[in-house]
């Protein structure tokens, strides 16, 4: 392919990453924040968010698109944290306890999400989104009405004064930053949460190792072409459910890491935005609905959060109101998801048209020699 075409493909491939880098760099100057502050902030956010964004990788491999249903995992994590705080277990032990309690809940929710998505093939993403709200209703019912009445709550500090139901915001003082401070390293001017990065590194190793297993291979096969995988005898439905299961479990652990860094838990809407942030991050990192890898995750988290740090203050300076910066950030966040989805859908349609077009030239007025039979292969790259 000519260099010009290759450049064109590169630009269309990474349009989102390029736009984002330009906007972020442009905002750094007017935001007036020092570079070291920004870098320090990005390091903490990398430690806080990467685990959540990594949990999106497996469903993408299995061809189920962006798993908006990961919010279910976040809810499971929050239930684990509620029990850890209620039983007064502090420090990193509290986190491990929260994960152990949240795990079975996320397994159940993950299985439900996978089964529902199997019934809505082709529309997994929007079904995941709606399922997240549906389960949010049930989560609210459990946490707001069942806890304290049916499920015993020990400490009055987190129960609503009416006797049952958990308060709107929980103070996670007992487990606050306990993962980060476990191995806080001082490198130059920056404080790096060593333990958090170790956990993230472990997850990356697991993902790389997982792609080498038979289950990983089956997932990739199902993601590429469900019909062929099924004909080869791969249990397609079960493989897809396992992909969602693992993603939900990782989201549960990721949410716990996220909340221990934040220090407080907005019981009823902390999970609303987890899906949005994680999806925006991985798309900003250059991933698409069917193709994603680990670098996409880290590039995405760095770029998205850098933009989220600088834009409100840049908005303050340029437009004279932080609100504009704030809304600008929302617009960019939603805009990037819409843009990359549109680009992906447009590019996949163009790929099909190109395949057809390639064939057409061959057919038009080819000379008598029957040898020049061109293939009308249906295996055009989807």
């Amino acid at each position, binding site marked *: 392919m000519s260099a010009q075409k290759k450049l064109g493909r590169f630009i269309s491939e990474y349009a989102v990453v390029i736009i984002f880098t330009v906007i972020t760099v442009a905002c750094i100057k007017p935001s007036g924040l020092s570079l070291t502050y920004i870098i320090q902030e990005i390091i903490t956010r990398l430690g806080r968010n990467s685990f959540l964004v990594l949990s999106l990788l497996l469903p993408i491999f299995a061809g189920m*698109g962006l798993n908006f249903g990961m919010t279910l995992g976040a809810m499971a994590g929050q239930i684990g944290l509620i029990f850890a705080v209620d039983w007064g277990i502090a420090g990193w032990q509290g986190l491990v306890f929260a994960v152990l309690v949240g795990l079975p809940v996320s397994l159940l929710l993950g299985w439900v999400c996978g089964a*529902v998505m199997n*019934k*809505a093939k*082709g*529309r997994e*993403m*929007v*079904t995941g*989104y*709606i*399922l997240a*709200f*549906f389960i*949010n*209703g*049930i989560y*609210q*019912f459990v946490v*707001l*009405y069942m806890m304290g009445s049916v499920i015993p709550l020990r400490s009055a500090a987190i129960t609503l004064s009416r006797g049952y139901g958990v308060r709107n915001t929980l103070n996670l003082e007992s487990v606050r930053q306990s993962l980060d401070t476990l191995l806080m390293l001082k490198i130059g001017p920056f404080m790096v949460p060593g333990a958090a990065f170790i956990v993230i590194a472990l997850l990356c190793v697991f993902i790389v190792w997982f792609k080498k297993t038979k289950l990983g291979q089956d997932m990739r096969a199902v993601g590429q072409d469900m019909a062929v995988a099924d004909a080869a005898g791969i249990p397609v439905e079960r493989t897809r459910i396992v992909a969602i299961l693992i993603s939900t479990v990782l989201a549960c652990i990721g949410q716990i890491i996220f909340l221990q860094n934040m220090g407080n838990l907005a019981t009823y809407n902390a999970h609303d935005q987890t899906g949005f942030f994680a999806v925006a991050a991985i798309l900003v990192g250059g991933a698409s*609905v069917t193709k994603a890898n680990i670098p996409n995750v880290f590039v995405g988290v760095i770029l998205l959060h850098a933009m989220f740090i600088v834009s409100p203050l840049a908005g303050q300076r340029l*437009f004279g*109101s932080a*609100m*504009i910066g704030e*809304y*600008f950030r*929302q*617009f960019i*966040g*939603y*805009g990037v*998801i*819409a843009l990359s*989805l*549109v680009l992906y*859908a*447009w590019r996949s*349609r163009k790929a099909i048209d190109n395949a057809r077009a390639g064939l057409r030239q061959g057919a038009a007025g080819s000379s008598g020699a029957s040898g020049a039979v061109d293939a009308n292969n249906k295996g055009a790259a989807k």
Partner: protein
Amino acid sequence: MPKLKEFIADFGWPRIIIFFFLISLFIAAPFVGVRLDASISDVLNRFGQYAILVLALVPMVQAGCGLNFGMALGIVAGLLGSTLSLQFGMKGMFGFLGAIVLATPFSLIFGFMYGKLLNKVKGEEMTIAMYVGFSFVMLMCIMWLILPYNNPTMVWGYAGKGLRTTISVENYWNKVLNDFLAIRIGRFFVFPTGLLLFVAAAAGGMWMFLRSKTGTAMTAVGSNPDYARASGISVDKMRTISVVLSTFLGAVGIIVYEQSFGFIQLYSAPSPMVFPAIAALLIGGASVNKATMVNVVVGTFLFQGLLTMTPSVINSILQTDMSEVIRIIVSNGMILYALTRKTKVTK
């Protein structure tokens, strides 16, 4: 018995459950000290408020564009129209109709661009529509702060620039439709004739449109795009018309909502208006590519009835406010039920 079974299969179990749940609420109301006439008047009022927003979904569903998760665009066009009508100080029925007229150009432009975009990305339209809608709403949040409005009732007190989050239409065109020929019985019961007449007119207009030449073509595109193409219909043109119509009706719908509700809600208010409208249409029995006027009326009545009755009745029964939880579970449950049906969205 088979006739009943076939009716149930067609009407769907969830809808039946919701129907009987609503009826039981109405029956339980008086025993729990909830005034029946006030509730019915409230349900009618909310029905009128939401009906047109639900009706706005019909054209796109009929044309096979699926559920319009991006209706926020239409709502924003309506907000632009109503804020401009306030800016020009238009009052009374003239103000209300002025708002619609002012909203029309915006809704047509937004609808046209949105339609062209959707035609480019057939398949996975719903997710894209949702995020285009959200990002557009956020863009407008910036616009509300920048656009040069200066009508004192609308602008922030201290800064003198940028619009307030909620603007009262009190002395402009508040309840213009509701009070038109309103029938009052006793202190509590008000029958908003004007509002319901307007809704009936809009629904009638839509029914007539769907039976017109273009309307028929659009329905054909919805049920079988290849059939329509083979009969010389330009599928993309029909889909764009349905999107423009849907966006226009969304604008009209929000203006009708505002005049009855009494306030214009700006900034991120449009986003949460979309899901209830979709849930209502689905509760009415619409499928992902077929929706009729009956679906709109029945669906809106059931859904809004549920929303008005649950807070009052359930609260007094259980002394807790479960209505929020019930609303979330019912509305999202319905959308989920529709999404997991076998009917495939246009590929």
